[in-house]
């Protein structure tokens, strides 16, 4: 079947099998491999992308369900003026080790900040509680998302 999905601002029209998962579509058909797969029970969040601005687990969405929507993957986080504040904060605060969970974590972080400009430690922990990390113990992920939020808030006051 024919699906049209806007991924990171470019339109992708493709003919897919109806059963194709969005994550497989993004990785195999479109060729963007920054979105990862870490489980088969919608538990880990490695596959998280933003669909019309909201985080979804792309292993549990059919490509067909994403027809007509705007999807942002990790490859689309960076803007014309450089890294997204969340990306910058993840490296500054050592929020990643192996980096496998990182795309999903950053996308959840970016969407949290868009909704809540000053998230508390608990707010961040709750927001990322659908995303597993086996390396960091989360502490620096939480720190990075809060750093990014503070930087965004600061720059919007400044501007």
């Amino acid at each position: 079947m024919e699906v049209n999905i806007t991924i990171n601002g470019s339109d992708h029209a493709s003919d897919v099998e109806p059963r194709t998962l969005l994550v497989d579509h993004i990785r195999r058909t479109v060729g963007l491999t920054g979105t990862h797969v870490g489980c088969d029970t919608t538990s880990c969040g490695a596959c998280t992308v933003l669909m019309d601005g909201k985080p979804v687990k792309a292993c549990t969405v059919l490509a067909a369900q994403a027809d007509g929507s705007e999807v942002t993957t990790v490859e689309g986080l960076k803007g014309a003026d450089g890294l997204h504040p969340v990306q910058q904060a993840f490296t500054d605060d050592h929020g990643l080790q192996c980096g496998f969970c990182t795309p999903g974590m950053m996308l959840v972080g970016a969407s949290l900040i868009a909704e809540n400009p000053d998230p508390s430690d608990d707010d961040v922990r709750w927001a990322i509680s659908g995303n597993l990390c086996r390396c960091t113990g989360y502490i620096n992920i939480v720190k990075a998302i809060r750093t990014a939020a503070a930087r965004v808030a600061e720059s919007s006051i400044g501007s």
Partner: protein
Amino acid sequence: MAAPTTPAEIGGIGHSVQRKEDARLIEGQGNFLDDIDLPNTLHMAILRSPLAHARINGIDSEAATALDGVVAVVTGDLMDQHGLAWMPTLSGDTQAVLATDKVRYQGQEVAAVIATDPYIATDALELIEVDYEDLPPITTPQQSLEEGAPLIRDEKEGQTDNLAYTWEAGDQGATEEAFAKADRVVTLETHYPRSHPAPLETCGIVADVNSVTGQATIYMTSQAPHAHRTLFAMVAGLPEQNIRIVSPDIGGGFGNKVPIYPGYVVATAASLLIGQPVKWVESRTENLISTGFARDYYMKGELAVTDEGRILGLRVNMLSVQGAFYSDAQPTQFRAGLFHVVTGSYDFGAAHIDCKGAFTNKAPGGVAYRCSFRITEASYLIERLVQNAAYEVGIDPAEMRLRNFIQPEQFPYETATGFVYDSGDYPTALRTALDELCYEDLRREQAEARAEGRLIGIGIAHFTEAVGAGPSRTYDIAGLKMIDSAELRVHPTGKAILKLGVKTQGQGHETTFAQIVAEVLGIPATDIKVEHGDTDHTPYGLGTYASRSTPVGGAATAVVARKLADKSKKIAAHLLEAADEDIELASGVFSVAGSPDRSVTIQDVALAAYTNLPEGMEYGLEDVTYYDPPNLTYPYGSYIVVVEVDPDTGVWQVQRMVALDDCGVRINPMIVEGQICGGLTEGFAMSAMQWITFDEGGNCIGANFMDYLVPTAWETPRFELLATEVPSPHHPIGAKGVGESATVGSPAAFVNAVIDAVAHLGVRNIDMPVLPDRVWAAIEEAS
């Protein structure tokens, strides 16, 4: 902490340099196994046994083979025709690649489908009919070793029972004597449950064998690419010069990516036979049920103590649950890993350990899950025992430890099991952690809370690890000595490339190993590229596990950098027209002793190495070192956990967790702390929720992330980190390794904290994971 000796621009040892690997990973440009997409790749899916123990009477793969898109169905019989139905394990046993006779655990590999599309490969699995005949499953070592138990390994010549191995260490006679002198014997029987490393990325392979040239390029999630190349050569009979293992970015390993799994062998054989690349990536369920479990030790520990709280001796009897094949990933001479470290941080003269390994109808494995070969089990046992001994003797658990610690002046210290600890100051470590918590106040608060009916517990663990295997005289895996290597080339412009035998899985080698070179030569760490994981492009080594990268590969890096520093000094002397012995090197500047204004930089020297040499010197500035460590290193730490237990539900919450680590010199403190936080979380996980268990039929409970609970950000406690720094005297830069300390040390601290909350009721043991219902039941039973 010692202050860094290099300026921040150079970024040598002690600087929290930002990680180089981050740039690609935060932009989705990492190159993980499943991201590799070669032209004409075929996809493999594996049919696994639903039963724990059954005879295979036949396999009908006709319908699967006929499915559109299926290229081949591989069975054990086909593998057998090529002599590959069985393969050797790392512990000298054999393991079925695809079952030919029986299945011996749920999830065992029975057949594989190779198809043009991964969805089709999975569809085809459903069409394969296997005729199984049920056999009785054995799930515990107690059943397994009973007289007359069904024989699991009936194919194994000479095997008449289910005993996999026996092992003992220490001195039995001396231990009996020590026990005879004791005022009391404190006993603890506990099970360290089966766990799984479960890195977020599962295991996988892309095997690309060219049938014309014989070149085999094998991309795999490998913590030990060089060792894997040699093992592939030995097992598959491929000429080693034609095998290139490429271990790309790895999404966490923790021991899971050390062994060679049947799927790798089948994919490689299929690629060879079909002549196209074959990709296999495990599903999470496959990962959890079939590859690389850890722990599963039934332990009985006895401590001989005096009424003054002095430890005199230790006796341990263990049953190790091997699964259907004995495939522990560990050094050849160490049947129960480095369990010798069970004497812990304490000074006493006698110990004896007796261990039996038993086959069961469970997945094989025995990988060292974020642990240097069974250290975690050993450390857990001694720290639980010492805590319980304190209750029996009637002294404070902190005081009990202080009375028995090996003292700083006793190092190097030989333990009752023969390890020689390199360095440490245990009393300072424990006192520092106690002070951070205002321990005495906390004990008062605990007593007050108890009077109000609230249950507060304080758990201590003071662990000592033995890492960095290891000296070639004792340590090998499958005959390969556990040395490691580093090759360093400095280019004419003064930039460098460092090539390693070890392989990062998230530990940050590309950053920290550059820092070691920066420290020695003064080339900025940002100017040094670190290459690893590709066997065609790096020198030989045994890989990254058992916290051996820094102790062995890091030492090799320091030594090779020093070799180049020596040559550089001679070149500098030539440029400065001074005597070799008058040249001093600091932070990349070579100057003449006594006249500091006469100097050249490492960049000047690098150019001269290719353009302007002293008479008779060979061109170039590069070298390679193979490092054979003189001893293991012995990191240690003092961890203290405070919990509150709800007496009505058994639910416990961590109030505080203070973790003091001494891992010797810290190359990059930020990365070290990151490793510790990750390790503490895994220790918490094992103590609180994470386990793989089985029902009576041998069905694995814990086959996915809904049943195998790994902590999310919500459950994970906050940690307070402290440090002391006693360098390793034998390591070139004084580092000891840190990646596993926190996973090794922390489970006992968490469990001891819960026990401490209910110890006054008489509770002395709750097995891990310390689930609320277990706590509740222990309280009920005691009161």
